[in-house]
C-alpha cells in the first residue's frame, strides 16, 4: 500500500506559503531597519540574516514543503505525507474518524484552497490535517468520508 502514487496538493498552496513567509519576515525587516537607522551596527549588517531568512521562508521552503506533501485517498483510508526535515506519514482509516472539519483562513480563501481535518478518538494524532486542497476537492472528500463513516456505522 506504500507504492501507490501520492496526489499532489493544489499548486496555489505554494503561493499561500510564500505569502505567509513574507508576512513572517516582515517583523524582521522592520527590526533590521530600526537597527540600521539606530547605527548600533554597520547599516548593512542586519540585512544579511534577514535576507537569508527571506530566501528560506519565501523562496526555498514553500517549494520544498509543497513537494514533500501529498496524500492518497483509498477506499477506506486516507494517507497524509508531509515534512521536509521531519517526515511524517500518517494513515487514518475512515472507520475511525469521529468528525471532520474543512477550514479556510483568509489567505486560503483568496486562493480557493482549504484544509481538511480528520478527528479521531486516539490520544496521539487526535487530529490529522491535510492542507492545500482545492476547496471543492476538500468538500468532496469530506462528503466521501462522511458517507463512508455513515455507511459503516449502519
Amino acid at each position, binding site marked *: 500500500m506504500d507504492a501507490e502514487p501520492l496526489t499532489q496538493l493544489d499548486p496555489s498552496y505554494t503561493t499561500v506559503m510564500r505569502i505567509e513567509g513574507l508576512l513572517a519576515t516582515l517583523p524582521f525587516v522592520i527590526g533590521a531597519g530600526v537597527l540600521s537607522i539606530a547605527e548600533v551596527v554597520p547599516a548593512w549588517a542586519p540585512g544579511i540574516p534577514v535576507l537569508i531568512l527571506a530566501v528560506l521562508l519565501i523562496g526555498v521552503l514553500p517549494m520544498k514543503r509543497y513537494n514533500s506533501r501529498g496524500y492518497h485517498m483509498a477506499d477506506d483510508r486516507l494517507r497524509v505525507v508531509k515534512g521536509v526535515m521531519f517526515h511524517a506519514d*500518517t*494513515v*487514518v482509516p475512515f*472507520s*475511525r474518524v469521529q468528525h471532520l472539519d474543512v477550514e479556510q483562513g483568509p489567505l486560503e480563501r483568496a486562493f480557493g484552497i482549504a484544509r481538511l481535518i480528520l478527528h479521531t478518538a*486516539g490520544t*496521539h494524532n487526535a487530529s*490529522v490535517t491535510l492542507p492545500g486542497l482545492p476547496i471543492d476537492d476538500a468538500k468532496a472528500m469530506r462528503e466521501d468520508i462522511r458517507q463512508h463513516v455513515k455507511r459503516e456505522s449502519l
Partner: protein
Amino acid sequence: MNSGIPEEADAIEVGEWHRVSPLTIAAQGVKTLASMIVPAAFILFGSALQSDKLATIAPYAIPILLGIIAINLLPAWLGWYRLRYRIGTSDVRLEQGIISRSARSVPYDRIQDVSLEQKLVPRLLGLVEVKFETGAGGKEELKLFLVTEKEGERLRETVRALVEETDEEAAAALPTAEGGEAPEPALAPGKVLFAMGQGRLFTYGMFSFSLVIFAVLIGAVQQLEFLLPFDVFDYAERYIRDEGYFEAGKYVSGMDTAARILGVLYLFLTVIVVGIASGVAKTFVRDWEFRLERTAKGFRRRRGLLTKTDVVMPVHRVQALVVSTGLIRRRFGWHGLSFISLAQGSGKANHDVAPFAKMAEIEPIAQEAGFTLPDGAEEWRRPSPNYYFDRTLIAALFVTIVGILVFTAAATSADQLEPGMFIIAGVVALAVGLIALRGYYLWRYDRHALDPAQVLSRRGWLAPQVKIANRVKLHSVEIAQGPLAKWRGYCRLNFGMAGGSFHFDGLAVEDARKLRTAVLDSIASVDFAQLPR
C-alpha cells in the same frame, strides 16, 4: 432553587433534583479543622517555650479556633445549599456555585464509568464521593461531592443501568454488530480474580523501597519552620560556620577502623530500613484489602486503608494491557498488570489491576479482558540497531563533553593538575561504559511482535515492560522520521490509541511499513461504532 426539593427519596427518582447529604458540611468542617491542628500545635508549642506568651494566648485560643471553624463552615453550608444534582432520562446534571453558578450536563452515552471513593473523614461519616468519568481528559469529569454510602451505591446502579440502556439502544441500531470481541461471557457476579492478603502486601511493600519520607520531612521543615522555636537552617549554617564538622571529624578520627566501618554500615542500614519501612507503610495504606473482581459490569477493584476506592472498569473499554516489573522484584517473578482504558483521561486515574502478582495470576485477568499474553509463539522482531547505536553515541558524546568541560573548569581554577581531577575522567569513562552497555542491552531485548489480534511491545533495560494493544482498537498509524532517522534508515511508529500512547521507536522503515499495513487492514475491517463501547 426552591425549597420543594425532596430530601433523599427511597429510590432515586429519574428526573428529580437532589441535594447531597448534609453531612458533607461536617466532613468539610473536620477537614478544615484537621488541616489546622498541626499549625495550631506548633504555635502552642512555640509559644509555650517562649516565656509566658502561652498565658497571654490561652484565653483566646479556643474562641479564635471556633471563629475560624465557623468562617469555614459558612461557605461549606452555602456550597451544600447551592449544589444539586439530577439523574435525568438522558443525562446527569449538576448545578453548583455560591455566587457564580455552573450547570454541567453529561449525557449517558458519554459516561464511561461511575466510581466511588472514600477518604478517611467521609468514611467515618459514612459518605462516599461519586465520580462520573467521561474520558474527556480528566478535567471535564463530573464530580459529585459526597453522598451517603447507600445513596452512592444506588446512584451508581441507576446511572449504570441507564448507561447500559443507551448503549443497548445504540447497539440495537446496528443489527450487523460484529464487534472485535466475543460478547461478554455471562459470569456469576463478583468472581474474585485477584486479591492481596496481608502477607502479599508485606512482600509487595518490601519491594517498594521508597525514600520519599526524607523528602516529606525536609518539605515539612521548610513549610513549618517558622513555627518552630529554633531556626533549622540557622542551626545548619552555624554548624558549618563554627566548624562543627571539625569536631565531628575529630570524633570520627578518634575511632578505630572497625568502628568507622560499623558507623557507615549503620548509616546505610538506617536508610535501607527506613526506605523499606516507608515502602511497606505506603503499600499497606494504598492497597489494603486489594480485591479485583469480575462482575457482570466489568472489572471491579476495591482497595485502600484510609482512602477507600471502588472502581469499575468495563471490559470492553480496556484498550491495552501493560505488564511491568521492577529491577529486583523481577528476579523473584513478581510482575504488575495495569489497564489502559478509555476512561483514563489525563492518566490520573490509576488502573492497576494486579500491582504485584505472579505471571500465573496475571494470565487469567488478561484473558478475562480479552487479551492473550505472549506465549513464545509470536514472531518477535527487533528494532533497527542503527537507532540504538546513534542514541548511545549521542548520549556518550554528551557525557564526554560535559566531563571535558568540568575537567577544564577544575584544572583552570586549581592552576595545577591534582590527582583528584582524574576521578572526573574515571567517572566519565564509567558513565560511557554504562551507556554503551545499556544501548547494547536495549537493542538485544527491545522487541515487538504482531499476532492476529494484537500488537505487542517489549521495552526496557532492567525492568522491562510489555504492552499489549488490541489491533482493532487503534485509531491511526503514523510513521515519523527526523533528519537523523531518515539518514540512518529507521523511524518511529506511532499508533493512535484512546487513553494512552503506543509507539515504537527506531524501527527499520521496512518493518514499520509491514506493521502498519497489517494493523491498518485489521482496523479498517471493523468500524469504530461497531466496537462494543
